């Protein structure tokens, strides 16, 4: 459906003048949002722009201080997630919000089980679940445990559940962050079909490519205010990003290449490193000031390779040489003493300690390297924290704020600061830009460039190929838990990486 048709389509949902305050901050300040039937409407904005708050207001999790919500012309006031679902507004969140221990069908009917003679009719429940999933082209046994399926399938179950509750508005909050390219495509296929059926879809994603691929329209928020609503067909990337960031970004800074690497001898050489069942044949070298990328689909063994290099898992073959000397990295503690750093992929579960302050989080790795007996004085810690808060532009009122209260991008910077404070010579960054906004992404990239100039060797893992191309001198490509190629120089470009991932050569 093109922009004109969507514009003439009836308005499904109308939010006017929404205001929401939290202690100390105005999260939403007079925001309007209009969703039409049969459109995919992307809500855009940096972290802290108010996207999540707006979605939570819409889905009854938060109650606004001011403003009105109309669904098909009727004033509504969802008081809880339950209310919103009953009204026809269903949400599928980033982390699939289902119960992994229960079966697919149980998750599908939970809370509205079909009853027959006073008991749940499981045969009927299984039949309904299978039928609904089939409509989304998902073929799974409804009696299988949900947790045994991939995230993509779990997400489809969540969508099927939402649709089955007579949803008229479907909110998809970052549904693609954990999916690989093929799964994203099939999700988009489903979204387009639902659009044809007249559903209104509110879509949130941090991936610009994806947003442009499916959206009919954008609404851009910045700092809790509405910046504008624009049809996708008439919007350029540059314009969208500029609106989101509130400053002009030249297309060139988005397609910058790294400075050429100095011709120093490699500091880290990895030969045929592998571990059964995790990843095989990882071969790469890193020079000081050089960044090596690991590219591949989700589950291709990227994170596994990083874990081997950091000693989180023990390799069972291959060798690692550090400055010419063979080393066996026994544990992350050992890796730390070798002055390695590792920013893990899932910052929530493996990175930050949310209840500790920014200062304490930053001091953690350095303290661990020094050993717990040689304590860092609180004064040194404070100096350290303040230095990095300034250097990385961490948006926090002061160093004593609990990290859990910061936005995703700022949490990521705190983790980065922690590793930088330990003065590493080799830093592994596993998806440092995942789930953070475009502005923070650009800042992280700029930081990486600075670090390269200071002679830090880095291993960079990202699902966004363009990021890899912008940041890396050399790219190792993984497929099915095995290294299948290595590109350098002019070979480092999106098309070539994609071809290597797809494996056209040996077909």
């Amino acid at each position, binding site marked *: 459906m093109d922009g004109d048709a969507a514009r003439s389509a009836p308005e499904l949902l109308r939010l006017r003048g929404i205001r929401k305050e939290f202690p100390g901050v105005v999260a939403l300040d007079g925001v309007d949002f209009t969703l039409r039937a049969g459109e995919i409407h992307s809500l855009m904005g940096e972290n802290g722009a108010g996207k999540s708050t707006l979605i939570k207001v819409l889905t009854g999790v938060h109650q606004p201080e001011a403003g009105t919500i109309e669904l098909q012309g009727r004033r509504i006031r969802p008081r809880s*997630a339950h209310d919103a679902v009953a009204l026809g507004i269903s949400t599928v969140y980033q982390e*699939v*919000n*289902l119960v*992994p221990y*229960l079966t697919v069908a149980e998750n599908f009917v*939970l*809370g509205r089980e079909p009853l027959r003679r006073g008991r749940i009719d499981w045969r009927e429940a299984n039949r309904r679940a299978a039928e609904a999933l089939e409509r989304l082209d998902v073929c799974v046994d409804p009696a299988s445990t949900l947790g045994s399926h991939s995230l993509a399938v779990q997400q489809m179950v969540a969508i099927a559940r939402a649709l089955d509750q007579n949803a008229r508005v479907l909110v998809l909050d970052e549904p693609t962050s954990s999916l690989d390219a093929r799964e994203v495509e099939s999700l988009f296929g489903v979204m387009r079909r639902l659009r044809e059926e007249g559903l209104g879809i509110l879509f949130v994603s941090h991936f610009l490519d994806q947003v442009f691929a499916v959206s009919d329209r954008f609404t851009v928020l910045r700092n809790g205010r509405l910046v504008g609503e624009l049809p996708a067909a008439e919007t350029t990337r540059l314009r969208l990003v500029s609106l989101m960031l509130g400053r002009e970004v030249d297309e060139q800074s988005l397609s910058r290449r790294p400075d050429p690497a100095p011709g120093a001898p490699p500091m880290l050489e990895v030969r045929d490193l592998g571990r059964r069942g995790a990843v095989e044949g990882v071969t790469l070298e890193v020079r000081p000031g050089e960044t090596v990328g690991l590219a591949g689909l989700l589950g291709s063994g990227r994170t596994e390779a990083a874990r081997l290099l950091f000693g989180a898992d023990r390799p069972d073959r291959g060798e690692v040489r550090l400055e010419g000397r063979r080393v066996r990295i026994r544990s992350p503690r050992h890796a730390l003493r070798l002055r390695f750093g590792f920013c893990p992929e899932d910052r929530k579960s493996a990175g930050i300690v949310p209840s500790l302050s920014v200062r304490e989080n930053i001091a953690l790795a350095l303290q661990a390297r020094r050993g717990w007996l040689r304590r860092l004085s609180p004064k040194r810690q404070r100096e350290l924290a303040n230095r990095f808060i300034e250097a990385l532009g961490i948006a926090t009122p002061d160093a004593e704020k609990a990290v859990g209260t910061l936005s995703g991008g700022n949490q990521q910077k705190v983790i980065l600061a922690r590793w930088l404070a330990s003065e590493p010579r080799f830093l592994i960054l596993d998806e440092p830009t995942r789930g953070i906004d475009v502005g923070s992404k650009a800042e992280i990239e700029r930081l990486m460039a600075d670090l390269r100039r200071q002679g830090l060797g880095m291993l960079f893992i990202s699902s966004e190929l363009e990021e890899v191309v912008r940041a890396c001198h050399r790219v190792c490509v993984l497929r099915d838990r095995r290294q299948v190629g290595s590109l350098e120089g002019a070979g480092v470009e999106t098309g070539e990486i994609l071809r290597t991932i797809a494996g056209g050569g040996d077909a």
Partner: protein
Amino acid sequence: MRMFRRSNLPVWATLAVFVLAVTGASLRYEHFFSFDVFLNLLRDNAFLGLAAIGVTFVIVSGGIDLSVGAMIGFVGVFCATLMQAGVPGWLAIALALAIGTLFGLGMGALIAWYSLPPFLVTLAGMFLLRGLALVISMEALRIDDPLFEALGHSKWVAPGLFVAVLLLGVYLANFRPFGRAVYAVGGNEQSALLMGLPVRRVKAQVYALSGFCSSLGGVVFAFYTLSGNANSGMTLELDAIAAAVIGGTLLTGGVGHLFGTLLGVLILGTIQTVISFEGTLSSWWTRIAVGLLLLAFIGLQKLFQAGKADTP
């Protein structure tokens, strides 16, 4: 087909252990394997089983209930005192069940609406009930109510009640929306909330259910011993938790089955019976055996969890 689901595997393991224990015992003692011994097993452990049913629900919901042992002591003293004052037996039972259920509901309400930690709320409940029981009477009170005597002398009533409540519990857990909600809340509370389930109400109800089960256990214990003693049911809450865990219930919530709990109770009972058959062993060996068994089952559960590490 659902019976053979992966999450039910620990229940099968428990069944295997039970069959093994009974087979071993009947090879050693020739009168062990008989219907009477089995019926006695149910009868001797009915009060524990009843409490364990409620505790299983609570654990599956992601909580814990430490008050069930004290509830059994309290209900016994409470009923005995009422009947000594001339209250008819049936009324004493009804009052005990009502108070037990309301007490559970109260704890549940605190846990659900004020987000207080279940461990501490039910620990407070345990002290409160035990203290109340001791305030009512420090000494054991004899019960000579005809209804209680009739119930106590029957060899069918206690096992019958146990099995009936168990079947009711299975129906509730697997064939009623309430039961599914309990599993969902224990499996992932945040998801349950976002899926629009009445999480708070379910939590409160689970503790009310446990209060009902343990007070019924108290009534059964009272007519089984024909006395009310403020100190009875001491550390029974831990036996109930052990029975549930041995039966495959995950202490973190979301996984568990009442048949598993039944087997857990039967295994605990069998160990006790075997040790009393042996004659020369101190009864404390029961504790040691239970401890080892618990360890083995926790190890087993860890193994199952490691097998599904891909679960988010």
